[in-house]
């Protein structure tokens, strides 16, 4: 059993009507769980303080977010990734972003104090935010703030990022830190934002060999994804001896995601989540902190995250989705309202294309293991 962290103020983290990073995704998830008879009881966090942000962010950057959030004009905002098409400025943006950070930090604190082992933060996962810049919908890096807190308390952190985009912000912030292992599986940066996350990015200094990336081919399906996951993730955890696992559980590797090109299904997510709980039991005495992240398909993301919650709580998985939920969200979902929690279909590329993709991903995993071998003893 685990606990959920959430606050109504999370929905203030919103960039406008048509922006993909919509608070609707979490609202639909919560509503789905309630209609399934499992209303989520959540713990309310506090927004992170300025001081807490400064554990990973530059003061001059935070100052700019504050000024934009207060409605002031900041002429050089776009040099800091702010006021851009991806991360537009909005009133109250500083506080909205601090709520996201506060939730993830609160989860880290519950685990550090030994009060909880499994925590699901129903927000955050803003892995692209850099020390001094916003990027890809991410203003403050809640994950990095929480990880910084944990390592300062003496818990070494294995960070696992299954969002379809490379977890560049978290990797960069801890690039030279030997107390943080980062593992990111993502669609290759040759094809997808942000462009980084190549196999050769292995960390620097004392952190060398502890930043691992699996850049995957576009159209990668679940079996290949899980194969390379198995080849790399357990070995890395075994090597590193983390105290806690922090997971960015973006749902945008799902086949239905409008921003990316991987082909995972809810069945793959179920297997992946079960495996992550197993790994936490084996390597971190069950301590695992999940955040959300990307996941821009309103058809898929709420089902993936509901699945995560149900698995965390050892609840049975339903077949059909409740009528009331389907009716309530039919308008938002357009003509394609899912009938069941799991995807009904298996998308498939042609067989030869699929073999080729699987082969290339396997080679990527092999190259990665070869590259880190000299750094692991």
């Amino acid at each position, binding site marked *: 059993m685990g606990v959920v962290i959430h606050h109504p103020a999370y929905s203030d983290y919103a960039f406008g009507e048509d922006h993909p990073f919509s608070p609707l995704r979490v609202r639909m998830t919560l509503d789905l769980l309630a209609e399934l008879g499992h209303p989520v009881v959540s713990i309310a966090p506090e927004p992170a303080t300025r001081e807490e942000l400064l554990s990973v962010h530059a003061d001059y950057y935070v100052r700019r977010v504050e000024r934009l959030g207060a409605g002031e004009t900041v002429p050089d905002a776009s040099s800091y990734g702010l006021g851009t098409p991806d991360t537009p400025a909005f009133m109250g943006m500083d506080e909205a972003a601090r709520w996201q950070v506060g939730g993830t930090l609160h989860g880290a604190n519950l685990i550090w104090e030994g009060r909880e082992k499994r925590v699901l933060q129903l927000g955050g996962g803003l892995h692209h935010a850099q020390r001094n810049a916003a990027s890809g919908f991410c203003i403050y890096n809640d994950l990095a703030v929480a990880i910084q807190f944990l390592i300062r308390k003496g818990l070494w952190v294995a960070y696992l990022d299954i969002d379809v985009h490379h977890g560049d912000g978290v990797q960069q912030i801890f690039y030279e830190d030997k107390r943080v292992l980062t593992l990111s599986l993502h669609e290759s940066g040759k094809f997808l*934002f942000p*462009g980084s996350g190549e196999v050769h990015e292995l960390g620097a200094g004392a952190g060398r060999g502890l930043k691992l990336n699996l850049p995957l081919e576009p159209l990668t399906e679940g079996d290949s994804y899980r194969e390379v996951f198995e080849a790399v993730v357990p070995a890395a955890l075994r090597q590193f001896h983390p105290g806690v696992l922090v997971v960015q559980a973006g749902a945008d590797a799902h086949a239905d995601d409008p921003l990316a090109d991987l082909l995972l299904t809810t069945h793959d997510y179920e297997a992946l989540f079960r495996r992550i709980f197993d790994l936490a039991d084996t390597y971190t005495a069950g301590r695992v902190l999940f955040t959300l992240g990307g996941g821009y398909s309103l058809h898929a993301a709420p089902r993936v995250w509901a699945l995560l919650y149900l698995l965390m709580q050892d609840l049975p998985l339903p077949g059909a989705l409740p009528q009331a939920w389907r009716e309530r969200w039919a308008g938002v979902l357009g003509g394609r309202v899912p009938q069941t929690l799991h995807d009904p279909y298996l998308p498939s590329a042609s067989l030869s294309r699929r073999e080729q993709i699987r082969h290339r991903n396997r080679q990527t995993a092999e190259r990665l293991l070869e590259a880190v071998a000299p750094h692991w003893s």
Partner: protein
Amino acid sequence: MLVRDIMITPAVAVFPETTLREAYRMLGEKGIRHLPVLEGTRLVGVVTDRDLRLATSSLAASPLPPDSPVAAVMSRDPMTADAADPVEDAARVMRDRKIGCLPVMDDDRLIGIITGLDLLDALMRMTGVDKPSGRLEVRLPDRPGELARLTAFMSHRGLDIHSILTYPDGPEAVRTVLRIGTIDSHLVAQDLRRAEFEVLWPPGKPWA
């Protein structure tokens, strides 16, 4: 990108009377393979690690002793680059002449050197990713104004173009690869298709 942006400066140089032994030691010490040869301040040749090895090899018809002067083995009147030359011009010269380096000159003065490795670095910089960005690949008719139409489309949306690379694709088209500063390149692609651009990457979505 210009030669001055990628050259190694200052260049390590030797004199015609420098011995082969000394030149060889300098190559090893600095981890380099090419040495311009200066007479006073005038460039008179280039000597490479290959020149030294071939001249002194026991396999040579008459191997030179290690205290021979560099002047005996250097290539005279070498090809050079100007600091203001585009890197592609330098690459062309090196490829055509099959040479591994070009001393870089500013008015008759040696100011640096570029080698094949520096050109590879330049290629990586031109095609690489140094800012968070997504890839967009568009096939454009090879006629005036098409590239401008594409870049105007980006600027109307307030999108940064971080890099742009264009090469011929058949006789009547060019392929343009852009790195643009957004996580949502699929949306940009969809709108480009609506504006009748031929977008090769990212692919369209089946439901869009």
